[in-house]
């Protein structure tokens, strides 16, 4: 019985190590794998929006830091390409 439990533990331990190595390769390094698990995965979502859905609106701030406008205000009569991102 103990031997079976030992093999199960070795199997799952091996899986964890393999997953960590794979994630490290994907993320760019062992430290980045931890960063990905801690900060990326909780924020990365496929989202519920689908093609054909009414686009949600949101208020944005202009580069002057005070002027406010809505996404919807920029989507009048022509297609609107939205580019989400940050500097880092």
């Amino acid at each position, binding site marked *: 019985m103990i031997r079976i439990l030992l093999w199960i533990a070795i199997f799952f331990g091996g899986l964890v190590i393999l997953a960590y190595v794979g994630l490290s390769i994907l993320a760019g390094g062992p430290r980045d794998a931890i960063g990905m698990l801690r900060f990326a995965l909780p924020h*990365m979502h496929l989202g519920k*929006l689908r093609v054909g859905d009414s686009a949600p609106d949101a208020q944005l*701030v202009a580069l002057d*830091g005070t002027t406010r406008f809505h*996404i919807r205000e920029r*989507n009048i009569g022509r*297609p609107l390409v*939205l580019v989400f991102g940050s500097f880092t």
Partner: protein
Amino acid sequence: MGDIVQIYNDYKDHADFLTIYIREAHPLDEWRMRSNEKDKDDVCYVQPRNLGQRVAIANDFTRRLKFTVPFGIDEMNNAAEGAYAAWPERLYILDESGRVSYKGGNGPFKYDPKEVRAWLAQRYGEVKHPEPAPEKKS
């Protein structure tokens, strides 16, 4: 972002563009990236804690990259990011009636400006650029 600027220049007479600046993907106090530290421009910031800090980084971004695409910054409640599941980077196209016509994948692995170009090219025609001339060997 260079691809997006090129697409913007090619199709701005037909479609509107809006960059939406969201939470930092790799700030120093979260998941920092060595590539950012090695970058010649040293793109290192902590995650903004207030709107003023986010606006300052966004301004630094547009200034350093000479980024000409129209620009908006997500509020600190991250409403736009949440509504579009946009972190860390993502592309959408909304049609004239305000419906989602194209939804890109999450960056960085599924972020593909070529798909946006293809959507625009299908509607408004392809914009071709001359191949860069090969470098002359001395």
